[in-house]
């Protein structure tokens, strides 16, 4: 591991963090504009054809600040978000959205992390395998499979897994995060972690069982991109001079392969930010398919209720999440590649 004095790294992190702000602001602005395109105002739109006495409607509009000039709304909401206040629901009047998001977010985080980890593992192994067998039948088969993986429609693929492993084989549960008979004391809301923290093995195993199918769905679909990148990088690295130099010093194959992997992995890391964003998109579909109570299925529920403030809040939370992940990826990249100067 490279040794890093804290000074420059801290600076690097701060600069990277600052660079994410415009991205989040732009997305915020975009979402703000989109949600103001609604004819009339969000309250009218949310109510649809339901009748509500005009004075109550007026009160809702005032409560939400929708009568103020647009730019005031823009900054007021932004300020609120920075204080963790995402506004209140249009449908369940007065309910703070941040409470819902806080409830739901750990489920998405857990699913995303598991799915992400699986996709990287699957991609690394298949990609390395393809590179080692370059030009063989296995190689071309893996290539086609990686393309197919990417084109799988997530809800369909998820349902097929549910059919096979849930309905026919009865191996795994097909929905939810925990069986009703299992009790777990929540700490973080990330069930596998909570189970470990409280030493609750039955709950851990049950939570993992619930996680397998949804995270495998995401993992397989997302792995294709890694398979191909790793294959290309690995083939290049394996043919490089320093690998030959290792062999010339008599280093055993297994170790040489590990060194090659480490080199091939670095460009993969740079791709992870974007991959994670794609994964979050997939999580919305996965959560709906597996009745997974995260912010993705929350978004979909709120869309059908036309609860526009909740939609706005959820998307902004997603934007922050994506921004944070790309920051983390940047930091990891700087840590594992000694050539990065910061």
């Amino acid at each position, binding site marked *: 591991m*490279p*040794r890093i004095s804290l000074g420059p790294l801290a600076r690097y992190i701060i600069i990277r963090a600052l660079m994410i702000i415009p991205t989040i602001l732009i997305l915020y602005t975009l979402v703000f504009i989109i949600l103001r395109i609604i004819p009339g105002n969000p309250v009218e739109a949310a109510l649809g054809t339901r009748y509500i006495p005009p004075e109550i409607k007026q009160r809702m509009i005032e409560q939400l600040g929708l009568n103020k000039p647009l730019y005031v709304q823009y900054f007021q909401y932004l300020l609120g978000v920075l204080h963790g206040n995402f506004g209140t629901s249009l449908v369940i009047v007065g309910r703070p959205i941040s409470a819902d998001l806080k409830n739901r977010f750990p489920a998405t985080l857990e699913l995303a992390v598991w799915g992400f980890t699986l996709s990287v593992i699957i991609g690394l192994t298949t990609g390395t395998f393809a590179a080692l067998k370059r030009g063989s039948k296995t190689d071309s088969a893996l290539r086609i499979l990686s393309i197919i993986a990417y084109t799988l429609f997530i809800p369909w693929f998820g349902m097929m897994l549910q059919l096979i492993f849930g309905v026919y084989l009865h191996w795994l549960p097909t929905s939810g995060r925990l069986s009703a008979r299992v009790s777990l004391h929540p700490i973080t809301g990330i069930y596998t972690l909570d189970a470990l923290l409280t030493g609750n093995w039955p709950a851990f195993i049950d939570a993992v069982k619930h996680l397998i199918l949804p995270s495998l769905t995401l993992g397989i679909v997302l792995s294709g991109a890694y398979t191909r990148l790793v294959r290309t990088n690995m083939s290049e690295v394996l*043919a*490089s*001079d*320093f690998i*030959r*130099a*290792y*062999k*010339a*010093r*008599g*280093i*055993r194959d297994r*170790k040489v392969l590990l*060194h090659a992997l*480490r*080199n091939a992995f*670095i460009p993969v890391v740079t791709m992870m930010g974007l991959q994670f964003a794609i994964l979050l998109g997939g999580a919305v579909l996965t959560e709906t398919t597996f009745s997974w109570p995260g912010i993705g299925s929350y978004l979909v529920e709120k869309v059908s209720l036309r609860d526009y403030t909740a939609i706005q809040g959820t998307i902004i939370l997603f934007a922050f999440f994506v921004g944070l992940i790309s920051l983390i990826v940047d930091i990891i990249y700087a840590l*594992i*590649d*000694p*050539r990065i100067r910061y």
Partner: protein
Amino acid sequence: MALLEIRGLNVEYPTLSGIVRAVVDANLEVEGGEWVSIVGESGSGKSTLAYSITRLLPPPGRIRSGSILYRGVDLVKLPERELRKYRGPEIGMIFQDPMTSLDPVRTIGDQIAEALLEHGIAKDKAEAYSLAGDALEEVGIPRNRLKSYPHQLSGGQRQRVLIAGAVALNPRILIADEPTTALDVVVQAKIMDLLEELKEKHDMTIIFITHDIALAAERSTRIVVMYAGHIMEDAPAEQLVENPLHPYTQGLLNATPDLWSDKRIESIPGYPPDLRRPPPGCPFHPRCPRAWGLCRSEKPALLDLNGRRVACHLYRREGAGR
């Protein structure tokens, strides 16, 4: 028995457009303590010959036939696991491009120490690092550089690191494939001095590959000239330079600038043959100023002439008597 004995070696690269015969029927003996230089134009098969010794040919290269006896052991037939024990401690290698021959994401200390541990030369990590530090100092790099990454070093320093990595394992033979080609002239001379110094100190045998016959002449005990996969001439360095027998060697020498005379530099006209479709007879005949009938039809054998060898029909009669 010679330290290294290459017999009837044939190496080829099967490609989509045909089989490249990169080394053809090579015979070569290297005695302990020698500095043998292999010279020839680009593509003549020098590297291929060198890499086949430890079987590190780039794909799709393969040894088609022949044997390579290192102290009586045929490296061609040795299983991969056994051969690995020879790579490094018995036969070390350094390469042309120091910029790409070190793992960019590991410290140079890690890379040198790893091999010391692998071959059991160091018992533990601490010893491995201390030996690696010694090796660095031996090549003129301060030991606090152990923690440096390759990108923090210059090209010359990196080549020194690679030499340190190879020499730390105490090999009997060091194969150096154009180790100075990528460096500037001043650094080049220093690296050559270093190699010579280490050779004496560690009692190594050096197989030195270069396309620069003048560079080879400086320190070699013997020079082997290759052309189109064939060994054309093999003689003690002085004799070869003073009195080159093969027309190709003569051409090579004429193409070399000479500081002390203002003779004209003449490059050999024409190009080396396509190794997928080598010409019949002597591979050099299409470019040879002294080619005659037999050269076009019959491949000349490598003839022994008073402790030197040459593959040329011009010396046929003399060779026949011996």
